[in-house]
């Protein structure tokens, strides 16, 4: 299973990468939405997108919109967001996101959510 992680905070990116690798997933990491789009266009077989909502160049919302509307992909999308951004989260759900987790987050919880989504998409 291949997961694309898009997060501008390097420390969080490293933590996410490490955790998901420990869980047995293959990971690709990028720092912004632009790189994520490039990666989605070049890399085949990405099973899940884990993205932060606030990023430079192209935001998480734009990235989700691109995946759903331009690429017409149905891959599960999990958002990482901050507390108090309920409107943004609702907008992301409208655009086609599948789940979200708020920072500060528990890596264990994130791992379970990803597992559940991947199982659901496989079925």
């Amino acid at each position, binding site marked *: 299973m291949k997961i694309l992680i898009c997060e501008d*905070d*390097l*420390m*969080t990116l*490293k*933590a996410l990468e*490490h*955790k998901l690798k*420990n869980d047995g997933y293959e990971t690709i990491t990028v720092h912004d939405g632009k790189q994520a789009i490039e990666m989605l266009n070049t890399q085949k077989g990405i099973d899940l997108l884990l993205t932060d909502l606030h990023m430079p160049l192209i935001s998480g919302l734009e990235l989700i919109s691109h995946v759903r509307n331009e690429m017409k992909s149905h891959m599960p999308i999990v958002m990482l967001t*901050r*507390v*108090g951004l309920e409107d943004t989260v609702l907008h992301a759900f409208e655009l086609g996101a599948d789940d979200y987790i708020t*920072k*500060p*987050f*528990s*890596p*264990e*919880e994130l791992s379970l959510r990803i597992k559940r989504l991947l199982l659901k998409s496989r079925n």
Partner: protein
Amino acid sequence: MMVLGRYKCLFWVIIFAIRFSEIQAQPNLDTVRIDSLHQTFDKENTAQPEPMFGAEYERILDKADRAFKIGLYKQAGKYYKEAAKINPNSIYIQYRLKEIENRKSNLRNFFFYFDFEKPDILIKSITYLVIYFIASMLLILLVILIHRNQMDSVEKRKQVLREKYQSLLVDFLFSTDNASKVPSDIKKIASSLFNRRILIDQMIDLSINLSGETKDKLRNLFFALKLERDSIRKVYNRKWHVKVKGFHELAFMDIVEANDQIIRCLQSKNDIIRMEAQLAMVRLGHGDSFGFLDHLSKPFTLWEQLTVYETIMFHNLPIPHFDRWLYSKNKTVVQFALRMIEIFKQREAYPNLFWMLVNDDNEIRNLTIRTIGNLKIKDALPHLKRLYKNETYQNCLAIVQAIAKMPDEKILHFLTLVIDKEEDVQLQIEAAMAINNMGEIGRTALQKLLNSDYKNYQIIIKHVLDKRIA
């Protein structure tokens, strides 16, 4: 100015050129050997040949001629005068001395008469100052260059260490090994102060976005490496930015040992220290996150209130009963409590809110009226009605607006009186809107007022009843 400067330079270049050409154009006088002149003069005075005055005389005369040639007229004059003492009858010397006087008095020479042999105090001082400033400038440039290089190298070193520590920490946090055992690599880092600072920064960065077991593991590592000592030391530091960093570290790692010192900082004159101390205490309050409000004697600014509120929301902290602070001596704390009561919809605070309606402070009364209105506490309606008569204009407006938010037929008569008796249009509009909010009964009442032909408030009622505006 630039053009003027150029012309000035040009002027000086021309003057120098003239001066140089003048010197060059006097070969007859300046380059003619003394002997030939002597001979010329001697020929004219054959009757009295000039005696030989010895080597000393010749030497002085040579010096005088050299000085004259290069334009050092003062020195030349001095030597000629010395020579004249030995040979007072020399026509040549007299001629030279006369020529020196002529040149000195000449306007062009006036500009070019530099006495470099004996510079006066001003020239000396300026020269030394110029040398001093150039030397200082070079020294400062050197210091800046060295300092910048040092900073660059330190930053590069920090970057390398940051990446290294990030990997070490992430490896440790997500490894399945014994969590209580601190890896030797990390232990080694903690032995150096420089490395420890970077390690703490990385741990705090990581703790911001993590929660649950992983965060606990990180916190345990912080304690195992005894890094809390560094953070506590920072809180006692005199520099404000170090102090604030200490607050952050303690708050994120949930260390309460320095709470007393943080509480003392709540009264700091420095706004940033005060605000950061408040935020730290919200996190470190442990069941009494807002206990710091009891100690706050300085004004609790709107920005600070907003930041504290954001912290509560971000960290999902327990919400206390804010009516506890309604009797605080600090007016800004009371205002904060009122705002929080409204935001967290603590309607049970009404018995205490009621007393705030008769508070001496006008602003507190105003905020209380608004809070009651937003919480829609109908029990307060009779009290609001009673207060109206003696309140300020702003508070009267707030009362009518609050009443509008909790429509009640019992208050219809009062609102009709406001429209009828008040002369202020804003109050009349607000009262009419409050009546309109009552539904059918209100609209009927307004229609009735509209039909009465002896008052001029019809236009207000028409405005309120206009569905396009609503």
